[in-house]
Structures are given as C-alpha cells and as structure tokens.
C-alpha cells in the first residue's frame, strides 16, 4: 500500500470530527486498524470533551459541520485554550476562503473530500513521524547516557567529540593533541580507541589528521 511505515501510527490517538454519520462510521472503521485509538465524534462539544479527557495526537476535522465550523473549533482550541494539537481539515469545498483560514491557523494539511485514505494516512504519518523520531532520539540519548554511566566515561566523551566534529562529508579533521586539549585522556588510551574504531571500519584514516566516518559499518555490528 505504501512505502511509508504506517505502523508508527499504532501508538497514536486520533480525534475525528465529522457530522455525516455514515462517513464518520466508515472512516472510523478504516482508521481504527491503523491507530491506537480513534475518537469519532459529530460535534465540536463532544470533540472538546474528548480532548479534555484523553490524549489526542492528531485532530481530523470536517470544515462544514452542522451549524458550526471546524475551522472555528480549531481556532478556539489553538487561540483560546492554547491546546496545540496538529490538525487535518477535510472539506468538500475548494473555496479559497477556507483555504486561507486554514493556512493562517497553521493547519498541517487540507484534504478534499471524498477522502483518499492513502492520502490521509500519509498525512498522518508525516505529522506523527517527527513525534516518533523525537521520541527515538530521546530514547537513544537515554541509552547513551545510561551506557556512559556504566562504562569508561572518557571514551564516551571522545566518541561524543568525534560525532560533534564531523563535517557534512562525514569527515573528522582533527589531531590527538587537539582532542587531548579538550578531553583529559591519556594518549595511549586515545590511540587504542582510534585503532579499535579503525579496525571495525567505523572511523578510518583517510589522510593525515583526517578520518572518515562510515555509517554502514555500524549496521554490521
């Protein structure tokens, strides 16, 4: 269906605001397979209750609701309640009036009805991916920090230095003395570390004072 990993959606809760009962039901049936939880509601009041009582990651809202307006609801959330939740608008209208309002509200996307589920899922993916990644980074940081507490902290510092000083071409231009100036590490330990990295082809010497970092070598580990 898609080359994007939609499994990432599995952990998220989605609020779906649509006044047409049929469409609401069917869309819910589709989306519930992809996400952790889908709250399908017909009015903005219900939607607000859901937001107050549950964790909502993305709001999907129709613009023209019965007697109300999805844009007005989002405005109310973002401006009045300062609840910043990414939102997708769906509408049968290609009216620029709505489009402009949507852009001003910094809505994440604007989907024309009838809804193409692929488009909707991709949009959800695009919105939620940074969240996932953020989580991942945070997790990795936690891992590194945890590891560093149980292993030699000096070596971890050097690795940290190496990655911080990689240029765009994954090249590290430095010397042992430079490293030693920043980090209080003995030269033999430093040489041993570089040697070890070089053996594992993680950081190979290209020329004098220049080392290349090879991402692929990490996968071998």
């Amino acid at each position: 269906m898609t080359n994007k990993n939609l499994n990432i959606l599995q952990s998220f809760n989605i609020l779906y605001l649509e006044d047409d009962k049929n469409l609401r039901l069917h869309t819910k049936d589709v989306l519930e397979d992809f996400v952790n939880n889908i709250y399908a509601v017909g009015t903005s009041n219900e939607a607000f209750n859901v937001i107050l009582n549950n964790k909502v990651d993305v709001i999907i809202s129709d613009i023209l609701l019965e007697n109300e307006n999805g844009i007005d609801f989002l405005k109310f959330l973002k401006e009045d309640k300062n609840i910043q939740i990414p939102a997708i608008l769906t509408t049968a209208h290609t009216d620029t009036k709505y489009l402009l309002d949507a852009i001003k509200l910094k809505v994440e996307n604007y989907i024309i009805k009838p809804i193409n589920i692929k488009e909707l899922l991709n949009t959800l993916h695009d919105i939620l991916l940074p969240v996932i990644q953020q989580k991942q980074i945070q997790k990795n940081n936690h891992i590194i920090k945890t590891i560093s507490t149980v292993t030699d902290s000096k070596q971890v510092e050097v690795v940290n230095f190496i990655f911080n000083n990689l240029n765009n071409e994954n090249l590290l231009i430095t010397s042992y003395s430079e490293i030693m100036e920043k980090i209080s590490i003995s030269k033999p330990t430093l040489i041993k570390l570089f040697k070890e990295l070089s053996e594992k082809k993680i950081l190979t010497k290209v020329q004098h004072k220049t080392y290349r970092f090879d991402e692929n070598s990490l996968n071998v580990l």
Partner: protein
Amino acid sequence: MIFNFNKIRAYLDAISFSGKTNFLIFIITGGMISITILSQVSIFSLKHDFDVLFEKRTKPLIELEKLKDTYKVNIYDTYYDVSKGNISYENSREVILLAKQLINKSWTNYKRKTENKDNQPSYITTFITNLFPQTNMFKERQILGENIIRNIDKKILIISSIMDNINYYFQRDEYYAASKNIEKLNFQIKSINIYLTSLSNYDLKLAVNEKRKTEKVFNIIIIISVISIFFVFLFSIILSMLIINNFIKLHSSLEQKVDDKTKELQKLNDSLEKKINVEVANSRKKDMIMFQQAKLASMGEMLQNIAHQWRQPLGSLTMIIQSFQTKMMHGKLTDEFVDKKVNDSLLLADSMSNTLDDFRNFFNPDKVKNEFSLQSCVEHSLELSKYLLEREKITFSLIIKDNIQISGFFNELSHVFLNIINNSKDVLTSKEKTLEKRIYIVIKKVNNLAQVIMIDNGGGIPHEVLPKIFEPYYTTKYKSAGTGIGLYMSKQIVEKHMLGTITCKNIKHKLESEHLYDCAKFIISIPIKQEGYNDK
C-alpha cells in the same frame, strides 16, 4: 368609314368623363339654340317673303285694275258721254285730265312697285333659291313682262295721242271725227286692257311662281330643320349612349377596382392573419424557450443541491471501498465486515439514486395527474432547496393545519413552490447578515380551497414592482440570472393546470418571533375537487 368611326370612337373614349358630359351638354344646347334660331329666322323670312309677295304682286295688280277702270270708265265713258252730248266737252276736260293724271300715277306706281328693291326676297330665301336654282322660265317671263310693259307704254302713248286727237276734234266740234277717234280709242283701250290683263296674269303667274318658290323654300327649311333636329337628336343619342357606355364602363371598372381592392384587402387580411399566426407561434416558441431557460436556470441551482446531496454518500462510498483494502491489509476482512459494508454501500447508492430520481422527475413534466398530499409536495420542494437555504442560513418552518389531498401534477406544483422559495431566498440573501432570515409556510383548508401561504421576511416587494411580478420577462434581478419567467410560469401552472389562483401582497408578520417583520406573502389557492380539469 368604319376606321374613321372607330377613330372618332377612340377619340371620344379618350375624352374624360366630364369632358364628354360637357360636350353632350354643349351639343344639345348648341343644337337647340341653332334649331330655335333657324326656325325663328325661317318663320320671319317666310313671313317677309309673303309680305313681299303681297307688296310686289298683289298691290301692282290693284294699280293695274285701277288703270283699267280709269281707261274704261273715266276716259272712254267720258268721251262717249261727250260724243252723245250727255255732258259738255268742257265738263269732260277736267275728268279726262284727272283720268290722265290717275293713269300716269297708277302706271308709275306699278312700275315702281314691280322694280322696288325693298321688296327683294329675304337673304335666306335668296340663299336657298341660289342653292336650288330654278328653271330659266323666270328669265323668259321677265322678258315677256318687259315686252308687255313696253307695249302698254306704247299703247298709253297711242291712247294719249288719240285722246289729243279727240280733244282736238271736240274743240273744233267735229263730232264725227271725234266719234271715229273715240271708236279708235275704245279699240285702243280694249287692247290696252288686254295688255293690262295679260300683265296682271303675268304678275299673278309670277306671284304663283314665287309662292311656289316660297313653298319650296319652306319645304327646304322644314327638311333642313328636320334633318338638323334629327342630327342633333342622333348626336345626343350617340353621345348619351357613349356616355352611358362610359358610365357602364366606369361603373364596371370601378366595380372591378373595388373588387380588386377587396381582393387585395382580403389578401392582406389573409397574410396578416398568417403573419399573426406566425407571430403567435413565434411568441409561443419564445415562451417555450423562456420556460426552458427558466428551467435551466433553476436546474443550475438544483444542480448545486444535487451535488451537495451526492457528496456525502459519495464520501462514504469512497471510504467503504478503501476500507476493504485496508481491512485486507490487516487481515481483518471478515464476512461479517463485508456484509455490513456492502449493505451500507447499497443503502448509500440507493439514496444517491433517489436524489437523482428526484432531480430527474422534477424536470420531467408529469404525464398524468395524480392524487397527492399537498404537504408532501411542499416538503419535496423544501427538500430540494434545503441545501441552498442552509447555506444562506435561512430557517424555514412548515406548519400543516390540514393535511389535504389534491390532484394534479406533482412536479409542476413543486416547481411553483420551489420558485417562490428561491425568490424568497434571493431576497433574503441580499439582506444584511444581522437579519434572522426566515421562510414560513402554512398549509390550510379554506372552504373548498387548499391554501399554501408562503411568507418570507425579506422586506416585501416594492409597490411599483408588485403589480408586475407575474408578467412574463419581468425581472428585478438584473445582475443575477433572472429570466423574469419564474413567477409567470408559476402563475400559468397554478391557473391553467391547477385551476387555482396565485396572489401576492406585503404584510407585517411576527413569524414566530418577537419582531414584527416586513414580509412578502404569496397565497396559492387550489380547488380541492378538481372537476373539469384542464388536461393540457
């Protein structure tokens, strides 16, 4: 001759009618006048001729008779008496002298009268006499007359010489010689008497001649006047005939002209009738086109409605179709799920189909009249315009006081309601947003009439517009796509097809709120029992 006659005829024909009449009058008057003058002149000349005859021929005869008598009585008798001695010579002298004078006088009188130029015959007589010359008898006779007159002159001289002799002898008293001379005288007197008699005969003959001549002249004049009368008469007749002919021709030509003109008028009339028919047909066609346009215009509005009504089920259907794929992906495509979704989609497709049917039926004229509920018809119209009303934030309320069944064309009537709702919508749309836009519809029964009252608070209809709103091609929607046919068509449908009435007025109404609004109110009344239904 015929050619000439034809030429004359042609010429006469060519003369104008009044010319002919004038000519006829001229001819008749001229003829009458000439006849009158001619007859007068003839009568006078004849009288003159008779006078002349009398003067010239009769009076000289008297002179001649006198002459004769004088010779016989005065001279001879006197001389005879003297010779007998009955009277004296002296006495007789005077008598003789007197007689001589008398003779002279009479003779000269005679001569003068016969030669008198005054007694010439009248000019006309002369003219006619010259025109019809007489035999030479007159000339011979003249010579004869002259001879006689000469002889008489001689005799008179002889007698006077004899008388001189007698007188001589008597003076000498030679009675014998005297008596011998008297005898001679007697003889001479007798001979002169014979001459005189023959002269008077001659004169009488002349008179007879002249009388004949006069008669001839008279006859000629009569003939001429008869001929001229005849000609005048003929001319008059011919001219009258011509003029009558002309009249007839004129009459017939006028008749022809009138006929022609009548035919032309008839033709013109026919062509006008044709033209009118064509124009009527054209205007019908135009009406049809306008109806069509009005339909198209409302179709455009309807289309938005339909589109909106289709969007929702279409969205749902799209979602259902995609759901099969996603369920399959997750291995959750159970029979139960498929059944449920298929049912749902069939329901959706059904509703879409119904919407289409509504749309199609609306624009398809009903073929037969049906019995239907007025309420359902109004609801149908509201349903069709619901989307547009919602979009313009117009609220509507339908109040059913009586549920009425009527018979007629459902779609047409629905069209009427839709039309009025659309008009209300157009007016309300143009109002400011603060106005709470309302349409208020009541269905109720009044006597034998089903009434639908439609009120909107769009401020009512301007007074100058109100009388014209049902006229065709009248529109106030200059900028929008108003055809001006909507209300006209509505009126036609209600009045002609439903036998009802449609009226409009401005009222003030609360429309279930606290404000008093200026409202336009349409009342559509339809007879509940539709007898004598006009099946178009």
